[in-house]
């Protein structure tokens, strides 16, 4: 960045977080990294369009993770686009523009927001349930409040803090009453070849944020239902025994090549080709529908009210 510019980004760092702040007269940007939540998976560094995120490698000593991998920002390159904040699977990065939580690129319609959902159907929730969901949750995203009534604890409320949720599905699979529905944003696969594991190594289990990998009989075991495909385990493995890949990302609708570039970097060219096919299919459908309505309008000679109503619907689809 040029010196003497008031609007240059400034980096603040302490043991808990890194903040990048940029202030213009009429707009303020804040990109914040929570160092404790970050597990160094490096997805942000992969997609950063300006290559402004540097990864620090982990330190694995005698099969234990001495130091987790970390990331750092180069503020001379960072353009505060916020792509990293959108994609972080561990909610470690977030971005605010003028106090509102949104990424610049999302605001400018150049990047989508990931589709991730967690829903509790309260009716299915058994009040005498021992709340395994809260137990299994790797963060504190689910809070079950119980009240003691007639000598027995009964569940009065279940609250979900989505900003903490990893969408790992541990709660959904732990619930005996089928009351929770979780939709993961990433879809992919995880493969671990235990033959390549060094003796007594536990690094992957120690870094995994959702306890997908657990050590049993001195060997790591993968419970792939819980995997969120952050690929941090692949990063810390000293022997390249793990292969994590993503093949689909669920996101809101956006027409932007910037998103396709990020998608290619995170998944594969095949995935991007598929997404483009679906997009062009959607466009074809809406064009045809639009033409149908035009024909309909012309042939029928409707009265003015009807015409207006149709035009309204047509315009909605034209967008």
């Amino acid at each position: 960045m040029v010196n003497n510019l008031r609007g240059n980004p400034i980096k603040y760092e302490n043991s808990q977080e890194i903040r990048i702040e940029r202030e213009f007269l009429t707009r303020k940007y804040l990109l914040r990294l929570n160092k404790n939540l970050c597990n160094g998976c490096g997805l942000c560094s992969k997609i950063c369009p300006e290559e402004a995120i540097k990864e620090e490698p982990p330190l694995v000593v005698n099969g234990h993770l001495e130091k987790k991998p970390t990331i750092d920002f180069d503020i001379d390159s960072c353009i505060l686009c916020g792509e990293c904040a959108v994609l972080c699977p561990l909610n470690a990065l977030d971005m605010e523009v003028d106090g509102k939580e949104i990424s610049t690129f999302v605001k400018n319609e150049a990047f989508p927001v990931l589709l991730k959902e967690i829903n509790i159907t309260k009716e299915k929730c058994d009040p005498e349930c021992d709340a395994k969901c809260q137990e299994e949750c790797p963060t504190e995203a689910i809070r079950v409040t119980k009240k003691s009534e007639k000598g027995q604890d009964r569940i009065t409320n279940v609250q979900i803090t989505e900003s903490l949720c990893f969408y790992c599905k541990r709660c959904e699979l732990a619930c005996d009453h089928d009351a929770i529905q979780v939709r993961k944003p990433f879809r992919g696969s995880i493969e671990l070849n235990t033959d390549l594991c060094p003796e007594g190594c536990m690094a992957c289990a120690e870094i995994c944020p959702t306890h997908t990998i657990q050590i049993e009989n001195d060997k790591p075991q993968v419970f792939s239902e819980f995997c969120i495909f952050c690929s941090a385990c692949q990063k810390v493995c000293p022997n390249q025994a793990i292969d994590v890949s993503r093949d689909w990302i669920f996101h809101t609708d956006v027409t932007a090549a910037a998103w396709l570039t990020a998608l290619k970097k995170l998944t594969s060219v095949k995935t991007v080709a598929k997404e483009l096919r679906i997009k062009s299919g959607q466009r074809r459908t809406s064009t045809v529908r639009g033409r149908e309505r035009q024909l309909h309008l012309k042939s029928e000679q409707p009265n003015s009210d009807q015409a207006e109503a149709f035009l309204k619907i047509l315009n909605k689809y034209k967008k």
Partner: protein
Amino acid sequence: MKASKLSPKSNEDIRIGVYVCHCGKNIAGSVDCADVAEYASTLPHVVLSKHNLYTCSDPGQETIKKDVKEHNLNRVVVASCTPRLHEPTFRRTCEEAGLNKYLFEMANIREHCSWVHLYEPEKATAKAKDLVRMAVARSALMEPQEEAVVPVTRKALVIGGGVAGIQAALDLADTGYKVYLVEKSPSIGGKMAQIDKTFPTMDCSICILAPKMSDVGKHPNIELLTNSEVTEVGGYIGNFKVKVLKKPTYVTKDCTACGDCVDVCPVEIPNEFEVGLTWRKAIYIPFPQSVPARYLIDEKCCIGLGENTCAKCKEVCGPDAIIFNDKAEEVELKVGTIIVATGLDVFDPVSLMEYGYLRFPNTITSLEFERLINAGGPTGGRLVRPSNLRIPKKVAFIQCIGSRSEKRGNPYCSNVCCMNTIKDALLIKEHWPDVKIYVFYIDIRAIGKGFEDLFRRAKEAGVIFIRGLPAEIIEDRKSKNLWLVGENTLEKEIYTINVGMVVLSIGLRPRDDSGKVQQLLRLSKTSDGFFMEAHPKLRPVDTPTGGVFLAGCAEGPKDIKDSVTQASAAAARAGILMAKGKVTVEALTPKMLPEKCMGCGLCARVCPYNAITVDKEKKIAKVVEAACAGCGTCGAECSFNAIEMRHFTDEQIYAQINAATEKDADKKIIAFCCNWCSYAGADFAGVSRMQYPPSVRIIRTMCSGRVSTKFVERAFSRGAAAVLVAGCHLNDCHYINANYQTKKRVEKLWKKMERLGLDKNRLQLAWISAAEGAKFASKIKEMQRIVEGATKEEIEKTVDRMTPKKLQVTA
């Protein structure tokens, strides 16, 4: 003028005329000129010796011309000021008298003698006699020379598209010459395009600049190369070969400047034109009145180039003017003259912690003020406090931020800040009459036309001027108001004043990239970091390099009027060269003697201009005269005496050394100084009247690379107490890199002296620039101690061991 019948051949009777100048009291004040003239008449070949009051004046010159004719003089020596000032003057006099101008020699008894030994008249006179003896000895060996005539390309290059570059380009183009205007940023206009109003007339800045910018864009004689940088400059006066790199803009000429692309670009980054107060997109136009009026893509932050894909701008571009595969283009230009108008940067006040710039939101710089109050700026002309975006009730201006301070910023005065603040204060009063304004100053400098009147108007409008800058600014955490604490030095009391906004009047400073331009054109800088002019009074827009001129703030801080004036002056000076269409190249080139050449090729290796080609088999070396700059490094390198440097021959230099060491050599320092830097530095010491011991005798060469190891050995073998070899700073050599050879040779000599058991401290090497007079003076003072410490045994030992054996036998 050609050599006439009065120029003698080498075996003709030498008849030298010596003129010792009083220069009023400048020389006569410390040197006994009559005595020196009397002494000169006793020297060999001197047939006439006079002293007069002002030799350079008309009557003085007439005397010389008369004497040449009457007494059949064939050599003229003038002992007066530095040849860097009046050698051309007296050479013309000689030519008018019918004498070849290369038969003229000067002894510098003013800058190098009378001015630096003001309080030792006897020693100064003795030194002047030595200098005259040296000049006479050289003069006897001088020969007439013919100068090569080189054509001047009638095209000019202007580097920098601010108001100075624009004015220079327009003047040259209107005269009829083709001009290439190269500007680094995407639009011309420079800093003047950013400010709101100009003083003292309160004209709108961009309104008076835009017509000029438009003229430049439309002018048939001006080729505008924006977003371009000069990467290489070769050649010499009248024949420069310049390489310019045109950086890609990714937008073609089809751009209609509609702006649709900006709406869809997702990247938001700080806007440099608005000094970071607001954002711009990756595709942008620098400002609405840009010339050329075309958008461009900032390749540093655009995410559509290279690996990344984003083509939002391309999708909406109507004329389809966006191309992502644009490449940089290098063009080669041939020009005759170059004008450097690269402009300025502003001081960054972040380092002045007490003023809280960037810590307190309501402390802004004067440049940010210009953008806020400009109707085209980010707030539409409303001067608002950044903390709450409301108009302040009280504003304070603090002057001299980064100027006039040895420790905090730059030591010089930035010229424009006082008037800029007065203008700003009046602007505020014009829009919001109730705002209270304080100006904290050290001095108010209102020197130009109409400036004092504007100052009076400001005072009448109620602006309060307080003499005494605040020592500290304290911020009120809640309101973000600022408390200024300082001393009012006129009333002798401490003030504590609360204001809503503080404007720091930041100073001007040389551009960060001026080092690059300096290296390209081999320019010198003065101690304040701006480019150096050839002479501060008489040649204010020339540089020491022929054909290169300066204009605007590149030469020093100044306001728009002075920049425009200087630009027109530089255009006129460049125009002189191009109107003549030819320039005579000084006859300082080497003469190759094929009978002695051994074909070793060392001369070609050391030539900084690659002007020599050597046929190793035929043992012939050839020099391209037009490319040769006359540094003499080849001559010093040749160990077979196969190169004779015209007008600076080995014999002439030996004669000067011998003359200097004829008497009392053991108390003298023989100094070899290069014409462009160290000799000029010694001149500067003289001009500044810095006093130093009178033991040094300076021998001038064009470049320190001319100094052969044999010269130093001759000086020592004649009993000199110490020898100084001085040249330009490494990487600043006027002849690119010839001084690296100097360094090598002196290091070789040091090793030899150590081997021979001699004190190598007696040979000193110094890099002294033209602005470092103080360094020269202190070097001589330092060497005086070496001179005094050199014992008789040491000097005898040196004479014995440095004298070449065969000379010893015959002696």
